[in-house]
């Protein structure tokens, strides 16, 4: 139990919270920007145009096959350096997570759009709605409801995957934890478990409300 005292050292908690803020910031910006990217990708994936189809297929498969870490290295060490692009580590993370989130959300969106029964499109047509009106007032609201469980799952995966940012040198919550453990290695040899335990709880506190909200909305929309 002695190791628990590491948490009481001055500055430990505020520093962990600062690290958590970096994690939450990267995740939140990535998730928020993934939404428009994903919706547009999803719409593009439903088009019949063969060129668009191939491009979207390659994009999705490329993002899915590559480990996120490899994507991060390509973005940060590869592209940014090769083109002398002034992209910092946090920016590279956000970029990769948007591309990843956009592709995955796009595939979810495609599935949701295609799951709307054809008769809904036909009814909108018979009522005189334009394609755009049908999409905004009929198809999209239904698709969003079907999209929700998968996209919340995706958001929590993005939150968790931000820990890879450590490897680009971003000082987020994991990195802060490592620093604290290293700095107190002799004073608190068993402190590791406690620091990572607190980090575990922090991730939980960030992700849990997401699944609560998703669960509540799912219930509310169950029959819609």
């Amino acid at each position, binding site marked *: 139990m002695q190791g628990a005292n590491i948490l009481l050292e001055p500055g430990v908690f505020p520093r962990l919270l600062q690290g958590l803020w970096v994690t939450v910031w990267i995740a939140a910006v990535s998730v928020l920007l993934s939404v428009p990217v994903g919706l547009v990708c999803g719409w593009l994936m439903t088009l019949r145009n063969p060129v668009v189809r191939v491009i979207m297929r390659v994009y999705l498969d490329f993002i899915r096959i590559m480990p996120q870490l490899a994507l991060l290295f390509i973005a940060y060490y590869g592209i940014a350096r090769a083109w002398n692009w002034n992209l910092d580590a946090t920016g590279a993370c956000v970029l990769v997570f948007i591309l990843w989130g956009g592709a995955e959300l796009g595939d979810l969106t495609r599935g949701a759009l295609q799951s709307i*029964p054809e*008769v*809904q499109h*036909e*009814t909108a*047509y*018979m*009522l*005189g*709605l*334009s394609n755009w*009106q049908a999409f905004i*007032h*009929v198809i999209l*609201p*239904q698709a969003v*409801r079907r999209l929700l469980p998968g996209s919340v799952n995706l958001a929590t995966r993005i939150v968790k995957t931000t820990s890879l940012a450590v490897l680009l040198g971003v000082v987020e919550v994991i990195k802060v934890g490592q620093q604290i453990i290293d700095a107190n290695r002799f004073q608190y040899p068993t402190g590791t478990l406690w620091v990572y335990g607190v980090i575990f709880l922090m991730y939980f506190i960030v992700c849990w409300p997401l699944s609560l909200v998703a669960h509540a909305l799912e219930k509310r929309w169950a*029959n*819609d």
Partner: protein
Amino acid sequence: MTETNKPDAHGAPIALSVRDLTKHYADAAHNVFDGISFDVPKGKVLVVVGPSGSGKSTLLRTIAGLEPIQGGTIALNGDVIETGQPGNENSGRVKRGEDLRTKFGMVFQSYDLFPNKDVLGNITMAPMLVQKRKKEEVEREALELLDRVHLADRAHAKPHELSGGQRQRVAICRALILHPEILLLDEITAALDPEMVHEVLEVVVELADAGQTMLIVTHEMSFARAIADRVILLSDGGIAERSDDPETFFTHPKTARAQEFLHSFDFVRHRNAQAERELKAFDDE
């Protein structure tokens, strides 16, 4: 409705006129139907009957513009609105203007209410978005229509809270509020439990009495007999028999094909007295 109080079909102007209509699916060996022609006079009810797969629903869908036609013409109130083009099998829904589309009111077999809107929202959406009518006026009319179909108290219910029969009655209101020239009903009771069929058909009978022009595809022969001003029997890609005198068609069909077709329903009906009672109920109204 009895035969005698049906207005004479011959004097009325023609609402819908179909000439030499031909429908073909890509890669199919035969045409779904080949050069069929018929008229629906204003204020009258044309019922299309026929065995499964005879193209009844497809006929309705081509008139609605949901599927392209490969030959013939469709005219509404004397204006040709569509001419068949060979080779356009895969061109999807016909490009019709919003105004023209609202002249055809359609009710499908099922699942056509918008689940994300309540009853009132379903009915008022198109008049407000497409016809740019005022919300208050549209809602007032929607409530009047709901009252006519005995659903005034369900205006704020979501579709999933309604029974199948109630949903179909809402769908009818949603089509009617646009004041369509013709109402197309595509087997609207086929997916309903038997006890709900009557409540929906009763509404349709009232509409017919009020002079709503309708083109109806149905499997309910007693209903067809009670409501039709004209009947066509669709079979093997063509009209096997047509009649301006439905009572005679249903009791003494001329062609062997019609006799055979109607006989199959007689068999069912004799086993099921319910259908007879329904017929009587319609006749009494």
